[in-house]
């Protein structure tokens, strides 16, 4: 006992403490020698903070992205409203949710001069939703079209070029829905001839509901992100409502016989925008990231994102993509040839996906639940 006591009180303890202090200080010394990367938090859909997109920026700026991935805008709003201000430095959001984020005070104002907006196609320089009262809060970074996704063995492109194909008797039980009311009901509204598919009065809304209900016997299932991939990939579903190239593009690149087409009734556009989170302590670095990803170089990377491909709003980005990967540029329609995706937008065939204007979001969602249960 005495011996143990003397051991603890004697010089050995001092030596132990010295060694301990040295050991604890070592990481600090090495940190000084090789500055540890700064962590930048990103709230985004899966894929945006993966190495294929961020590795170059991380190396250039000695940054490490810490992503928090979400599925769906509501999930994103939930995460951000439950976190203290400054939790997320960079926020990626679907365009229709930017206004809700802004209204709740979650976004920092951006200076338009900081970003290469003059390189963007004119349609995207003052993109609705990015601006509020003449102030910029968000910048569109990528977008895509939603139309008819189809199995190329089962349908020809001509057959799939109308939403009416979903009612084709040979597709009974083979039509899948991406399980989210907004894109599906928007497409039904387009089919009903509503030029502003989300801004419809009560009678048009009733007509959309009736049209949608008539499709129910054709439907084989309602799928989330993973289920949509697998059911298209294994041919379980032969046509899909509510999605586009962001899903079929990935499958197509991996050899699956699926494609998406914007039908004659028109398509919807989803748009992803980057913002800086309110209260971010690293707003400068966040700004640099948005500058990078909206630059021609970053845009070409974004277009080819491994998780899901997309169209890009930066005209010079199209040139870089063409130089790097002409095949992908052609596949997605980002070329100088007539009929490219910008021509498609300019011809009025594409409408923004947005929240319903004359009904509550809840009204649409409740109907969607009823439709599923019918």
């Amino acid at each position, binding site marked *: 006992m005495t011996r143990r006591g003397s051991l603890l009180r004697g010089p050995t303890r001092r030596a132990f403490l010295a060694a301990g202090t040295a050991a604890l200080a070592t990481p600090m010394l090495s940190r000084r020698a090789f500055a540890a990367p700064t962590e930048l938090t990103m709230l985004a859909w899966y894929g945006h903070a993966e190495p294929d997109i961020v590795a170059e920026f991380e190396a250039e700026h000695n940054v490490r992205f810490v992503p928090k991935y979400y599925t*769906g805008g*509501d999930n994103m*709003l*939930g995460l951000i*409203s439950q976190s203290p201000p400054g939790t997320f430095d960079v926020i990626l959001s679907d365009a229709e949710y930017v206004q*809700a984020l802004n*209204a*709740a005070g979650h976004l920092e104002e951006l200076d338009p001069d900081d970003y290469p907006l003059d390189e963007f196609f004119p349609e995207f320089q003052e993109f609705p939703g990015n601006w509020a009262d003449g102030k910029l809060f968000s910048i569109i970074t990528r977008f895509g079209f939603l139309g008819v996704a189809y199995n190329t063995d089962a349908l020809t492109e001509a057959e799939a070029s109308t939403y009416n194909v979903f009612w084709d008797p040979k597709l009974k*039980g083979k039509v*899948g829905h991406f*399980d*989210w*009311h907004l894109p599906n009901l928007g497409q039904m509204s387009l089919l009903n001839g509503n030029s502003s598919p989300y801004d419809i009065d009560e009678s048009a809304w009733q007509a959309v509901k009736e049209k949608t209900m008539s499709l129910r016997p054709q*439907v*084989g*299932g*309602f*799928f*989330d992100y993973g*289920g949509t991939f*697998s*059911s298209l990939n*294994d*041919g*379980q579903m032969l046509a899909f409502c509510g999605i586009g190239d962001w899903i079929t593009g990935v499958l197509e690149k991996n050899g699956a016989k699926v494609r998406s087409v914007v039908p004659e009734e028109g398509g919807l556009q989803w748009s992803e925008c980057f913002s800086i989170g309110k209260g971010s302590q690293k707003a400068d670095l966040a700004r640099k990231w948005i500058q990078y990803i909206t630059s021609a170089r970053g845009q070409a990377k974004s277009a080819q994102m491994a998780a899901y491909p997309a169209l890009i709003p930066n005209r010079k980005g199209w040139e870089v993509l063409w130089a790097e990967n002409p095949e992908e540029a052609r596949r997605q329609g980002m070329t100088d040839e007539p009929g490219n995706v910008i021509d498609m937008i300019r011809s009025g065939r594409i409408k923004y996906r947005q929240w319903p204007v004359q009904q*509550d*979001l*809840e009204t*649409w*969602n*409740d109907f*969607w*639940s*009823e439709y*599923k*249960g019918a």
Partner: protein
Amino acid sequence: MRRPISLYGLTFSLPLLVWQILFFVFPLVFLVALSFWTVRNFTLQPDFDTVNWTTMYGRTIFWQAYGTTLALAAAAAVLTSVLAFPAAYAIAFRLSDAARRWAVFLMVIPFFTSYLVRVYSWQIFLSDNGIFNVILGWAGFGPFTMLNTVGATMVGYLTLSFPLVVLLQLFSLAFVDRTLIEAAHNMRCGRLRTVAEVIIPSARTGLVIAALFCFILSFGDFVSPIYLGGGSPTTLSILITDTTKAGQQWPRAAVIALTMIGTLLLVAFSAVKFAYRGVLR
């Protein structure tokens, strides 16, 4: 006779009590409170409003989903019990001690892999171009639609609960008094009649508890109805996710969750009462 509370007894019972309060009672109380909150502009606001209850209970889809979920879980409990019983019976009465240990081990193995992975792998078997349809195709049949059906959901429920039900049934069969079976045989009672009139009544408690576990697991399951049933028909677990998908309606989801908890408590108490009827007298 009532025993005085001792420090020894408390040492063993307190952790359980603390655990229950922290992870069951407290979240449940919170869930009840949440069901009276309101949502404004995607933000939850503490409130005392019955709107969530009246809205959910006033919707046809809610009662439709409730009926579907109840029927599916009850069917799963019956089907699993019926299919598991011969397996449990054989393991309990027909196998040698060594073989029985192996059988128990084999029943535990499925728990080593994630349930989600097992359900996903069923898609490879059940899809139109899947293994079953290819085999049936060789024999000149099909293809049959198996995936995205109620039958496929049932396969998922079986995957979830079959091994557990076999184990629970096995433990109760193992404790059946063998002398009763011998007595039945001595009195010229046939094999099937012995099972029906001696073994099943003797093992009733375990059999009912096993079926109850299957019911509980299936009632709350989200994975099988989505990935094997294709999300149709809507079950309560699917309705919960639907409800939270637009406008952050967690309070309405809480109403569904509380109704599910209430139903499970009711079913569990009734089942336990039936299982132990006459046993504790």
